[in-house]
């Protein structure tokens, strides 16, 4: 029955690991929109910075995703 436990672990690893980055990406998006509304002339540079921050936040969620597959295979 260890198989089913590791499947549960995989689901938990991804599910719980996605909470933090989910909140983070939401905050990045909302703050960028807010800043763009305040200073539309900065939109281009804000967007570039947003994508950098987005990439870094997303990586955390994806570590959970990879871990899920490691556990699924275990």
């Amino acid at each position, binding site marked *: *029955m260890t*198989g*089913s436990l590791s*499947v549960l672990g995989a689901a938990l690893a991804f599910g719980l690991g996605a909470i933090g980055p989910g909140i983070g990406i939401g905050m990045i998006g909302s703050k960028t929109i807010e800043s763009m509304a305040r200073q539309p002339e900065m939109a*281009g*540079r804000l967007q*570039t910075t947003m*994508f*950098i921050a*987005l*990439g*870094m936040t*997303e*990586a955390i969620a*994806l*570590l959970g*995703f*990879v871990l899920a597959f490691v556990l699924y295979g275990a």
Partner: protein
Amino acid sequence: MAAPAVTAAGAEEASPLSKGIARLLHELEVLPLNGEKAEVAGSFSPENFVLTNYSFWLLVAVVLMLVFFIVASRKSQLVPQGISNVAEAGVEFVRNNICVDVMGPEGKKYFPFIATTFFFVLINNLLGNIPPALPGTGTVGTTFVWGVIVFLVYNGIGIKKNGFVPYIKSLVPSGTPGWLAPLIFTLEVVSHILRPFTLGVRLFANMYAGHIMLGVFAVFMAISLEHFTPVSALVLPLSFVMQVLLRVFELFVAVLQAYIFTILTAVYISGALHASEH
């Protein structure tokens, strides 16, 4: 009852869903082109250096990229037409929106490396969206090695620009109290070493996750056709719609991930260039 399948979750016979998922994972596995997986005898033994399904499609992508740019640049003219217009728009985007925006005017010097990274990743990502093809970037081998190349390049640029000792010293910002310096230094070294990992894993996981998602809905469709019940009438159209939507989303992700990979490369090079300034 037959011996339980290895991938089956419980002692029961494998459900159609877990069988479907197992087949899906098998489809996405890295396998040599000539069929069976070789016996693993040390990862670096010569018989493991074979053309796999992923590296085959990677080569196809590279050949496509070469053909595209050779054809596009063959007849260069002041007002580009057709295919060279597309190529010029892409190249200009990389030069203006990635190189110059992130690194300033001196970023133009590193344009060849940045552009190679961008178009390599982009064409590999996009090729993965054409059904028989696999994305060359969908395996951790390709992306991690590209991450290591980026790591070597930006550190090389930093050392060349600042000199070895000042570059290493610049890991600790000036004005740090002496007792804190070793801690900051260790943290900075760890964060630098993690960069190729995160670059590689981000790209790989995005491509892999996208194909898994598409595959899962394909498995749903296959199961609901095989075991037709009233629920299938609901699951089948929903899965189909999700497939179409996800495919569009995957195209967007392919471009976005190429952009993020390249812009992070540019940020790292820019950080190495201006290392001695802070």
